[in-house]
């Protein structure tokens, strides 16, 4: 029986994992402390403020959940691409495409008086399709013409951004708002709240379901296995009879669909209109950039990504209060995020060098 051996192997791996992240976390805290002190702040006060405002109140907790949803979906989109060997830096564009898909569907079906249990899923599906299409473009260009998906996805970010700009200012513009924002979507297409008083919508449940779904897809389906094989060594995968082009045309659109869902939920659950700045809070890095960091920290593994996305959601939602309480710029939190990523990468690299 190989089971006991494998169990102890896994325990060992889990321990190594824990040590890596504990070391990285400690190092990041130490660096962050130096930074806060340099700005004349008190480390414990700063930390307490962030935690209290993001987890300590119902309102704060709801905000954290609302941030957690797009962060997790966007990070899964990056992680899924990475597992398949593709670097998807087009998450922002795909989020916008999803937001457009959601909003467009909502406006198109407005007159049909659909009840929300039908309208909301249809709207989200519209968003998923929008993102899917935004991922399909780099996929097909890659397969047909060997164009690098990195260039295509970056360029498509701009296309999507200006498309939103056009729609929000032009055909869908809300004339009463006096700014670049669309008319509100119909009430029946708004994602229900799970904590109505605090303001948390159901998006985080959908995002968690997506993480679980990705885990099962990767480990329990033949296509998921082929995705991992192509991501690990595309040449060997081809020698093993895997149709790499077909898998690429699964990977990129799936990345897009996950991001598109994030964008759709931002519209349906949070903003309830289409506007610029859907991908990311004001003054913060956009979701696409943070998603890459989260995927790196979570090692492209659905569980790891979920945990890392939760930590980032706490930091993002706590960032506002930093400024209010101790006068530290909200951006300090993003410096702190960057430090976490750097330390994780650093500690991982050191362990790998040591292991030979």
């Amino acid at each position: 029986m190989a089971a006991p051996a494998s169990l102890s192997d896994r325990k060992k791996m889990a321990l190594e994992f824990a040590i890596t992240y504990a070391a990285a976390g400690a190092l990041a805290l130490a660096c962050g402390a130096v930074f806060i002190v340099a700005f004349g702040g008190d480390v414990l006060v700063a930390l307490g403020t962030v935690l209290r405002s993001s987890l300590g109140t119902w309102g704060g907790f709801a905000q954290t959940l609302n941030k957690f949803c797009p962060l997790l979906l966007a990070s899964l989109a990056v992680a899924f691409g990475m597992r398949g060997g593709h670097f998807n830096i087009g998450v922002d564009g795909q989020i916008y495409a999803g937001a457009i898909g959601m909003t467009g569907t909502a406006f198109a079906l407005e007159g049909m008086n659909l009840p929300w249990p039908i309208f909301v899923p249809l709207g989200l599906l519209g968003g998923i399709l929008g993102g899917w299409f935004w991922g399909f473009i780099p996929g097909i260009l890659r397969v047909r013409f060997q164009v690098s998906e990195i260039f295509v996805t970056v360029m498509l970010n701009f296309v999507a951004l200006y498309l939103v700009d056009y729609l929000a200012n032009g055909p869908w513009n809300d004339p009463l708002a006096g700014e670049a924002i669309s008319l509100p979507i119909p009430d029946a297409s708004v994602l229900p709240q799970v904590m109505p008083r605090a303001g948390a919508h159901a998006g985080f449940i959908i995002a968690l379901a997506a993480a679980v779904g990705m885990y099962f897809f990767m480990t329990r389906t033949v296509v998921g296995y082929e995705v991992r094989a192509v991501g690990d060594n595309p040449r060997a995968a081809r020698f093993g009879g895997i149709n790499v082009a077909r898998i690429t045309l699964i990977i990129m659109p799936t990345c897009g669909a996950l991001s598109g869902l994030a964008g759709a939920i931002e519209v349906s659950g949070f903003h309830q209109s289409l506007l610029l700045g859907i991908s990311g809070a004001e003054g913060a890095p956009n979701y696409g950039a943070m998603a890459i960091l989260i995927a790196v920290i979570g090692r492209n593994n659905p569980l790891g990504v979920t945990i890392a996305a939760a930590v980032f959601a706490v930091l993002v939602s706590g960032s506002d209060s930093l400024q209010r309480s101790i006068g530290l710029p909200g951006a300090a939190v993003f410096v702190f995020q960057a430090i976490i990523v750097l330390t994780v990468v650093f500690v991982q690299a050191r362990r790998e060098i040591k292991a030979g």
Partner: protein
Amino acid sequence: MTEKIAACVEMYGVSKSFGEVRALDAVDFEAAKGEIHALLGENGAGKTTLMNILSGLYRMDEGQIAVEGREVDIHSPQDAIAVGVGMVHQHVELIGNFTALENILLGREGSRWKLDVEARRSSVEELAANYGLSIPLDEQVKTLPAGIQQKVEILKALYHGADILILDEPTTMLTPHEVDVLFTILKSFAKGGLTVIFITHKIQEVLDNCDRITVFRGGRKIDTILREEATRDRLVQMMMGERGMPPEGERPAGPSAARGGHPALSVRGVHTSAKWGVPLKNVSFDVPRGLIVGLAGISGNGQKELAEALAGLIELEEGEVHLGGEDVSGLSVSGRIAEGMSLLPQDRIEEGILPSLSLAENFVLGLHPHIFKRRGVFERETAHALGRKAIAEFNILARNEHVPAAHLSGGNIQKTIVARSVMLAHETGKTLMIANNPTRGLDVMAASFVHGCLRELRAQGAGVLFISEDLDELCLMSDCIVVIYTGEILGSFDGPEYDIYQIGALMAGQKQEEVS
């Protein structure tokens, strides 16, 4: 020379570890002026590591080196050149787009700021004449045959002042005739006072060509003996130790052993485009069931392209490929696998394994459309059971089937991909196995194991296309041999007995009529 040997190079107590692997364990070695000294041992015995230390490529962990009685510190290839050590590596390390002359002068082109190739031409020509090396100095290196490229490397080492010349497996890329030429040159070098050290695992080369022999096994020096004291049996015993030589295995029977019915593989008039590498030109041959057909050729003459065209990785411009009578020319790789083709790729790292996936997941590759009962579901228990079976049956050294493939040693990785393709053959009806250099880099035992697997498939009625650059291995394994040269099949030979000089002539590009 037997009386007193003036040591020119001495190495004492040299140890070197790579991670946890002790590649060299307190090795003493010395070579004398004017001798050809062979380093004999299996792959992984430590002989190349020792010479890489002497030539400054690796640093030793412990030990001392003396050249002509003076202790030297060798920390880089430049240090080695400064004390007169030059090494010609197994794979030619010249710049293909440069001419022979430019390659020879590389690193010594002139002063730091001034490129002055022409001014040095006469000195290179003179040196070449002195050593009897005739080289077309103005040809681009990539257009030269392997034997000439090797001479360019040798002349380069000499030009840089080497009087201790190390050659790592110098004969692997050469035809039998080129091998004879090489050793004639090396013997004249030794007569002229150079020290020649050559690394090999071929016993016959050692017996034919050297003055002294140092045998390595498992990172240790076993002994140094004179040619006169050496016999084949003694060298085998020193090389293999207690294990002895693996059994030779069943000799090939020749083409008469072919089984009837449709041949396992039938290739007709295949052409491929130059965009895939060496273009195949009108390639036609059969691999009957129950035979091993060897494909002989010097590396880079279209073997890789042929294997990939047969496997469905390269599209055909013209021609047909039939597997067991079925036309598979239009099928994908997985379609051909389903028709009974199994490919053992040449490069186990680049083309063989999925490094970070588990062993079980590696064994499943290629089989994965066939072995799971529920469509589309990756049944992990099935994969793990297959992994355990393969580890046990093929003697793979791994803790269990969950270990990432990249954690295995090279030999065990090779066993893994052999196991996979053999299992694939069993699963899909054993029509054809394409084995592209399946024993490259393996030690004698592992190579013999791979040979055994291929012979077993033959005995079970599969056709085997056996591609190898080692002519001795081909002759040992093949019922017949076809020779490929620049993408063309130049001729074929029926076994089991072969004239390697005739095959070698075809490998060098002479047509069969001209040879026989």
